[in-house]
């Protein structure tokens, strides 16, 4: 006899079960939120370190789970840890020498022959844009990723960044301005009006 699938439990219930010692409940929480945690991490620190930052985020969340008060959504709380972990990782990586991003990311696609020209162009624009995004100062990058790439509302961003709403809007405006300047000072024409 087939068992009926269990109804989707709320995050709060899974947190409760985790705190009672059920690791499978935490596994479900990780499965549920790994997508957004990884995307935000990857956009802030880059794809090479995103997996490590995501893992750190979930481990920190696990050890602090008893401090989660439920005043904000679990996702918001988790994104708060994600962006702090990502910014710490960036601060740490700035202390060690790395290959300049411009050199490493400008490498051509592995197999350009198989891809149509339009797809190659799209991929190239995407890579250039990712590079420029990573050239933004980290705190600008974080707010821009949360709003313009992940589509979070201003209130949730204010909770993630632990900032007043007005400051979030101001920072986002400056972040967009800085990215526009970076794109204007590029050999590639992004057709940005003055």
């Amino acid at each position, binding site marked *: 006899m087939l068992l009926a699938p269990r109804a989707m439990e709320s995050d709060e219930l899974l947190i409760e079960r985790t705190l009672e010692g059920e690791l499978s409940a935490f*596994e479900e929480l*990780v499965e549920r939120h790994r997508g957004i945690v990884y995307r935000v991490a990857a956009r802030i620190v880059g794809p090479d370190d995103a997996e490590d930052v995501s893992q750190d985020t979930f*481990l920190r969340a*696990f050890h602090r789970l008893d401090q989660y008060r439920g005043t904000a959504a679990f996702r918001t709380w988790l994104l708060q840890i994600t962006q702090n972990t990502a910014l710490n990782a960036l601060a740490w990586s700035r202390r060690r020498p790395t290959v300049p991003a411009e050199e490493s990311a400008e490498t051509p696609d592995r197999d350009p022959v198989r891809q149509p020209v339009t797809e190659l162009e*799209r991929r190239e*624009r*995407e890579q250039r844009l990712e590079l420029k995004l990573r050239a933004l100062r980290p705190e600008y990058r974080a707010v821009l990723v949360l709003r313009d790439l992940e589509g979070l509302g201003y209130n949730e961003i204010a909770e993630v960044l632990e900032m007043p709403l007005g400051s979030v809007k101001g920072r986002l405006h400056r972040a967009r301005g800085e990215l526009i300047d970076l794109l204007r000072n590029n050999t590639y024409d992004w057709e940005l009006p003055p």
Partner: protein
Amino acid sequence: MSADETGEEFTLAERRLAEHLELLRASPPITTPQLVPRVIRGVRWQRAVRDPFLLVGAVAAALLEGLGVLVKPPTGKS
């Protein structure tokens, strides 16, 4: 300056930027399925190490406190 459906106002350059960013939104970075087992392994390992570590710390703190009481010079008038 123009506003979108959320009431947010954009300059022409910001609107153009939003169009460019659509390119990134359309191809989000995707995590590998290995992330979940990696996290759970990390939790298991840290839990296994953490509890004995905390116990050793608590015992050491209690010993130090006891030692402190023993070697503390007597106070009060004699």
